[in-house]
């Protein structure tokens, strides 16, 4: 085993670049062995399922076959990739006819689907390697006094949750607490951000973003922490429209949980991609300013 097969996915090469940068930086700092899955292709996302489910599963299956050849578990920071890879694996077992068609096609390319390959999210990976206790010991710049909203989004919670009991889980909250920050109770932590709607039926998408942001502000949060590139993008890029057009002046930065963790670990902000954000993270307290400088 050469460590986790890191599967960044398409978003992390573009709008979610800072998620890629901060995940790599945190993995390196905490000694998680990983290497990018070579020649990975797009997982298919939601768009492919709208065209044809068999080709959607085939696209994801190629990645599973590549990881099988390497013999490593997959780690996918993007919840959509995590879902598609997990769902494909599940459905290929449930629907043997489809599996056979896809297997035959992959074989022509010299690829094989093996047994089930673990597909993990960085939250799960870091919880084991090195584990929260160990992470606690390595915190150099505790983010004391920072009020953080934990926002999971949809796909880590359902339909294939990363934890046994998604209703009562605190996996993301635990990571926020370990940084020394304060977790703000947030009823909408697994409510949909609108997904691709902001790009296609904008009014509906922006409305959903508005609901999430208004609640975060009402709770007095100073930052929203996400685990998903699409959630981050929607909550940040459409904030002006979602809040400003409704007469709300406040703005709230939206970070990835890996960025928050990285800051607390004392990693330099530019290694975590903080300069890429449209709403800068500029905490008011002196102790926090030290962490981001």
């Amino acid at each position, binding site marked *: 085993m050469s460590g986790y097969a890191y599967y960044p996915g*398409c*978003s992390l*090469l*573009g*709008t*979610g*670049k*800072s998620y890629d940068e901060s995940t790599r930086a945190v993995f390196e700092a905490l000694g998680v062995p990983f290497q990018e899955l070579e*020649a*990975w*292709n*797009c997982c*298919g*996302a*939601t*768009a*492919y*399922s*709208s*065209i*044809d*489910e*068999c*080709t959607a599963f*085939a*696209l994801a299956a*190629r990645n599973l076959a590549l990881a099988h050849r390497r013999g490593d578990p997959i780690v996918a920071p993007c919840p959509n990739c995590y879902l598609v890879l997990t769902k494909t694996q599940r*459905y290929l077992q*449930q*629907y043997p006819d*489809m599996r056979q*068609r*896809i297997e035959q*096609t*992959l074989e*022509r*390319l010299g690829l094989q689907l093996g047994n089930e390959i673990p597909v993990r999210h960085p939250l799960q990976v870091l919880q084991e390697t090195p584990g929260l206790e160990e992470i606690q010991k390595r915190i150099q710049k505790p983010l004391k006094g920072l009020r953080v909203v934990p926002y999971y989004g*949809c*796909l880590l919670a*359902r*339909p294939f949750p990363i934890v046994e009991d998604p209703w009562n889980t605190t996996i993301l909250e635990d990571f926020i607490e370990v940084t020394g920050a304060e977790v703000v109770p947030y009823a909408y932590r697994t*409510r*949909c951000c*609108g*997904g*691709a*709607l902001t*790009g*296609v*039926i*904008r009014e*509906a*998408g922006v*409305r*959903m973003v508005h609901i999430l942001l208004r609640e975060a502000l009402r709770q007095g949060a100073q930052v929203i922490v996400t685990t998903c590139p699409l959630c981050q993008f929607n909550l940040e*890029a459409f904030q002006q429209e979602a809040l400003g057009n409704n007469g709300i002046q406040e703005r709230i930065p939206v970070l990835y949980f890996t960025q928050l963790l990285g800051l607390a670990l004392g990693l330099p902000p530019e290694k975590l991609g903080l*300069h*890429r*954000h*449209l709403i800068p993270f500029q905490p008011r307290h002196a102790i926090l300013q030290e962490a981001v400088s």
Partner: protein
Amino acid sequence: MEIQRTIKYEAELDRQFAYEIAQSPGAETLFECIQCGACSAACPVSIYMDLTPRRIIAMTREGFKHEVLSSLTIWLCSSCYACTVECPVGIKVTDVMYALKQRAIKEGYGPRKVLTRLLAESFFQTVKEDGRATERKVMMRLYRRAGLGAMLKMAPLGFKLWRTGRLSAFGTERIPNPGEVQALLECLEEQTGGEKS
């Protein structure tokens, strides 16, 4: 005054449609729906829908093909899976929505101004060419078809993303061997084409 019949006679329904949808992965228990409405209640977008998810299920299994495939609902679904985990009889409503989208695209439904369909198609094309989805390429493809107005509305955001290095102006993400993905997809398309003709 011109009068119109506002109900549909049973003979006008497409029962076959219901059986076909029920055969897609995740829709097996379509006919077991008890119309409890848990899906509609869980759905964060149902308040904008012309037909709520519960009604989509009811109308699909009765064969209201035209109404279901021309609804805005299937394009509003953001695939959050809230309905799927709530359904007491195990209908994967999100998958049913996918099956309906596939049918609508194949049969030419979907109003032009709803971009969801165009997005799916631009995404599909881009991944087929490169093996990966370069966001700029997907969006340019989408807005070229959606029109100048829609593109201009997105332009300021595109500029900000470019400035922060989150949207490349020229570069394309491509796997080393995009032919492999093309071969994979074409091979399956041939099989599907053969089956359905």
